[in-house]
């Protein structure tokens, strides 16, 4: 009876706790290495290009169309109660506090997280990581540190870009397609948007970046059994990182709202 209950619930729970422990250990190892060992600048800059520069198009399109559709939907509802000019404030605050960080994170997971776990996973199953170790190179220093640092630098910038494009496109849609008065739109937006909103968005971006990079690298480093294992590791990295972003977003919102409260105060 107990054995059956343990098998049904205990074992998966233990596996989950072990998995969390491994990811946290990888993060601790990476931060330790970051402060105690030399940084490989070339690898870091390559990763900044890979994560930051090459994600531009995806992030711009995501931000632009989210801003456009959110502006339209908000206007459709607010217009009924004569508050159409408040659309700008809603679009701007929502993009900064929630939509910008979460949607950018999900796009970065799909584009960067998947490729990180696939690349490191392939290196693992083809003994390239063993080769690194055999050549006296610590894999965390060589593979994880440059990626983690590049992600910590790139994610806030990508989120800022996503928010800026979203607000700009939302403004364009509101003014030219929905015929909202531009002056009122801007005045309301500036009045209701505070610097703490953007700080909250960028703080979330930083946290999501850390989650994505460690979940993806861990899945790559623990990949097994050839091509199938790499495929499984990549899928799990994308699913786990997406869930981690969505779940942690709620707790980050609740916690950060204490420090950076929403609204005009």
């Amino acid at each position, binding site marked *: 009876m107990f054995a059956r209950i343990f098998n049904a619930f205990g074992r998966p729970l233990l596996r989950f706790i072990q998995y969390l422990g491994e990811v946290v250990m990888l993060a601790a190892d990476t931060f330790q290495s970051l402060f105690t060992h030399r940084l490989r600048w070339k690898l870091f800059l390559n990763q900044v290009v890979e994560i930051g520069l090459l994600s531009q198009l995806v992030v711009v399109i995501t931000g632009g169309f989210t801003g456009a559709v959110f502006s339209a939907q908000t206007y459709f509802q607010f217009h009924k109660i004569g508050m159409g000019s408040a659309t700008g404030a809603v679009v701007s605050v929502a993009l900064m506090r929630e939509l910008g960080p979460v949607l950018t994170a999900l796009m970065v997971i799909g584009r960067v997280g998947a490729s990180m776990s696939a690349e490191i996973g*392939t*290196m693992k199953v*083809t*003994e*390239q990581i*063993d*080769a690194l*170790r*055999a*050549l*006296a*190179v*610590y894999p965390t220093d060589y593979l994880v540190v440059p990626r983690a640092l590049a992600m910590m630098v790139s994610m806030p910038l990508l989120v800022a870009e996503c928010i800026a494009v979203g607000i700009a496109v939302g403004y364009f849609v509101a003014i030219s397609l929905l015929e909202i008065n531009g002056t009122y739109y801007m005045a309301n937006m500036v009045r209701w948007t505070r610097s703490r909103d953007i700080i909250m968005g960028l703080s979330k971006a930083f946290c999501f970046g850390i989650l994505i990079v460690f979940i993806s690298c861990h899945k790559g480093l623990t990949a097994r059994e050839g091509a199938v294992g790499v495929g499984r590791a990549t899928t799990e990295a994308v699913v786990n990182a997406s869930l981690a972003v969505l779940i942690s977003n709620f707790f980050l919102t609740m916690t950060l709202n204490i420090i950076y409260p929403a609204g005009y105060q």
Partner: protein
Amino acid sequence: MSINYQQSTNNSPMIAVHGLEKRLGDQEILRGIELDVAHGETLAIIGRSGGGKSVLLKHLIGLMRPNAGEIWIEGQNIIDMSERQLAAIRQKVGILFQGSALFDSMTVAENIAFPLREAGERDPQVLRKRVSEMLEVMELQGEEEKMPVNLSGGMKKRVGLARSIIRQPSCILYDEPTSGLDPVVSDSINKLIRRLQQRLGVTGIVVTHDMKNAFHVADRIAYLHDGRIYFHGTPAELRSSDDQLIQDFLLGRSERENL
């Protein structure tokens, strides 16, 4: 109690293994390996496929951790060393992987120069010179800009070997250096291993099931069977052994008659 202490390298063997045991899942792969390799000597470890030869080799450079036993490299027990502490040992001991394990995002020249770069060498002229020396030794001139995916199996092995020896280790571990190669390329790899031993005095451990390879390169041969060293002696002693198991292995005879 700390067991990491420096012994005199002149009297102690280059590599000493005592009571090494390894389990993978329910399977006992190594069941108490005892092995000594002297400085400058080449030892061949032979045995059936799947018998734990590669597992043993990976233990010698700390890529796998045993369940019990000791491994001494130049008087230092590596069992309790952390991954970072092992870096010093790995500068002395190079390994040629069975699949060569070349970095597929780098060219041949970048692969060969990698250990030097990581050791802090930045001067492009020095790197170019050392790489071209290695390419000459390995007879790979003109191949430096190729990517590993465009190399043949024999070329990959030679690039892997060049990458292992560019930092001039005092010991090289070869995991199946001739498997999957045609007889001519196998012979060239055998000669290369022998040359490294004779010219540079490099200690070598060659894991193989290719008997021609073993007899060509080895000063001594160890036969790994059932997770233990079943036989240990010179190639001549192995040849003259009348043990049934050894004779079956040497002659390639299957135990099962009625298939």
